[in-house]
């Protein structure tokens, strides 16, 4: 086949989306490190390892049903075609009209979308951390990928009722982050706080993560992966839009880091590392919806506000008695809401025209129209995911139970769920063991 200019252009676009898909899948490494670092040593192997298990489950469920439910042709509520994706262009042409705008192989489109569903699910797991049974990850992983993510995805990206409405959610502040975070919130409320989190008088204890270096590395990997997440959502590189998207993404993340550390320092007097890392993620979540629609200065504002907002909401949820071990709802939920709404303020006319979705924001004379559309989108997604997650998890709680026993939680999920320690050498030395020398020593008065 003689390479023509359109073919080459399509190949360049496809390559970029393929690279982006790999970057977004690589975000799983970021989540594994972030979550493991933010939790205790006795759960480290479980917390990191379940990321692989659930990405596997998510892949199978999304391939069988999730992809068709999200992007298949159907009604304004859900997609009804294209189940058991076979990768052919025939199926693509007949079943997934909503994805036809991008001229790249459908296999790459699938991989890219799957990576997004995987991220959304990984966000949800934050709310389950350190106390949910392994079987819960298997069952909820399947149900989330079939009944929760595809519905919101279809509404906004799959030709559903919110897409027609002109909602701007470029890379998924709502679809991916708010959806995952809302499921996390429901889970963390139904699971109840970890043992030892709250005192009798209601005051809360900090349960520090066991490795800030892991957490930091996780955030750096997520930051890098986000270039695939946002800039890859252009579905091509030929237009050049991906450069702008990458720029706003990076500016927001940087602003989030600086603003979150600054606010933590100003309020608590401590330059708190976990708060800074949460600020980076919150800023990235926020800019996800608006990255293609806003100018660089607005990205700085959006990222900074997200970083500050998350710092306060994390404290607030903690005080409300909601033990969200990885701050999933503050980081992905609150920032997801803020990011989605930020389009309603900051969407610039020239960029809106270029992307071709919705209207300019309030600060550009667009009035309240786009803000209203954004708010409706956030509200609908939030309510749906709250209700669906609650129904699914409440049934699971009644039938199979969500939480490990108290004893298992105390000994750690590495041992209770997997039969081995994540850090075998280190924990072995804590076994009661009296050496001959220790046996002889007596208690000294001095």
């Amino acid at each position, binding site marked *: 086949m003689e390479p023509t200019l359109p073919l080459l252009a399509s190949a360049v676009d496809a390559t970029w989306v393929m690279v982006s898909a790999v970057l977004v899948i690589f975000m799983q490494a970021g989540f594994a490190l972030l979550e493991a670092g933010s939790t205790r040593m006795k759960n480290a192997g479980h917390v990191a390892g379940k990321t692989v298990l659930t990405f596997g489950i998510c892949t199978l469920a999304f391939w069988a049903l999730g992809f068709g439910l999200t992007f298949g042709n159907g009604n304004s509520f859900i997609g009804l075609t294209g189940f058991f994706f076979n990768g052919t262009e025939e199926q693509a042409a007949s079943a997934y009209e909503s994805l036809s705008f991008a001229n790249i192989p459908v296999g790459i489109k699938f991989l890219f979308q799957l990576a997004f569903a995987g991220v959304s699910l990984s966000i949800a797991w934050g709310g389950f951390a350190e106390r949910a049974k392994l079987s819960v990850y298997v069952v909820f992983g399947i149900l989330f990928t079939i009944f929760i993510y595809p519905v919101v995805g279809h509404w906004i990206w799959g030709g559903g009722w919110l897409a027609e409405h002109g909602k701007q959610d470029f890379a998924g502040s709502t679809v991916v982050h708010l959806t995952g975070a809302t499921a996390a919130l429901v889970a963390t409320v139904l699971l109840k706080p970890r043992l030892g989190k709250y005192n009798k008088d209601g*005051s*809360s204890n900090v349960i520090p993560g066991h490795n800030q270096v892991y957490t930091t590395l996780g955030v750096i990997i997520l930051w890098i992966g986000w270039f695939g997440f946002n800039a890859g959502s252009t579905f091509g590189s030929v237009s050049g839009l991906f450069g702008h998207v990458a720029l706003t993404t990076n500016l927001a993340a940087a602003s989030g880091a600086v603003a979150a550390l600054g606010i933590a*320092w*100003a*309020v608590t*007097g401590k330059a708190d590392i976990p708060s800074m890392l949460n600020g980076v993620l919150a800023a990235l979540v926020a800019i996800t919806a608006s990255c293609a629609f806003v100018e660089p200065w607005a990205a700085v504002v959006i990222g900074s506000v997200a970083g500050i907002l998350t710092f306060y909401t994390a404290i607030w949820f*903690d*005080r409300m008695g909601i033990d969200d071990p990885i701050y999933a709802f503050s980081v992905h939920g609150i920032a997801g809401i803020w990011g989605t709404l930020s389009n309603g303020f900051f969407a610039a006319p020239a960029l809106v025209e270029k992307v071709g979705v919705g209207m300019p924001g309030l600060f550009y004379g667009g009035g309240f129209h786009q803000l209203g559309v954004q708010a409706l989108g956030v509200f609908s997604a939030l309510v749906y995911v709250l209700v669906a997650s609650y129904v699914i998890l409440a049934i699971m709680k009644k039938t199979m139970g969500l939480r490990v026993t108290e004893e298992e939680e105390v000994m750690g999920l590495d041992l209770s769920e997997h039969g081995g320690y994540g850090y075998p050498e280190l924990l072995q030395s804590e076994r009661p063991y009296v050496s001959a020398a220790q046996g002889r020593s007596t208690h000294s*008065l*001095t």
Partner: protein
Amino acid sequence: MDLSRLEGVKRAGEMAPYAVTVNLIHDRVIRQGVLLAVRHLAKMGVGTPPVPFAFLQFGSGGRSEQAVISDQDNGLVYRLPDGMDKRETERVEGYFHLLGAAIVQGLEQVGYPPCHGNVTCVSARWRGSTDQWMERLAAWAADPVWEHARYLLLVGDARVLWGEPDVVAPLNRQYRRLLAHNPILIGRLVSNTRFHRIPLTWLGRIAPDITGRYQGAINVKYGVYLPIVNAVRHFALAHGIHAASTLERLAALREAGVWPEPFCREVEHHFRLLLGLRLIAPLHWRDGTYASNSYVKLSELSSDTLSMLREAMKLALRLQDRTKKLLAAYPE
């Protein structure tokens, strides 16, 4: 203790005058403890003190600045007569080891937990003859690693609470001699106390704990009181002033013209209020634990006490800055 009459005290100023009373009570109780320990040993057939001795209070007790709940920081010094033979010396040492144990146990029974760092007269490090103490001080000063600097700071607050002050007099002279014109040692003592972080943000806001048992409270002891105590002590030591309490040190610094009079008055004013604030702390918790003794809930303080606290923190920061410059005052 019946604290109900103190219910609702929100102002540090209301409590400040009681700081002296509280310390007089502590002194009487502890003196009585020592006396009972001596009698107890006599009753047990161990005998009476074979040589003159002194019971020392270190730390806040030494400075007469104890809070309502206080731990034990104490030591024993005894004078061995010249030429005492080895067996007799061992007998004397044995007596004071038992006396130390009896005192610490007795004081623990009446509510003074032994200090975490084992600074009590049952520990060999904090008990000994005048000569042993002299050697100890010299050894610490010669090798001022972190622990030794800490020990020297504790001795700097020593006060004889029971026994013969004469026994301790040579130690005081030795201590003064070791510190005089010794900027390296003063430098070590200063760096030993620099880790206290004052919970005042750069926006000038008091930053309470945001989680945990002490949510909404600040640690008055480490956050503002001790930084001031330490700064005043450093200046006093560096200028050859040997007084045990912070207020006496301030008066001496004023008289010696080290600090201008208005500044000394300002520090003194804030310090008296802080002593009052420390007495409020246990009213906020009622759990009788030693740690709670240091925390005050901001929500239960009056607005004038809060602004006093903020000013005291700013003052502590200024004092820390001055302390940094203290060493620069020494000639190279």
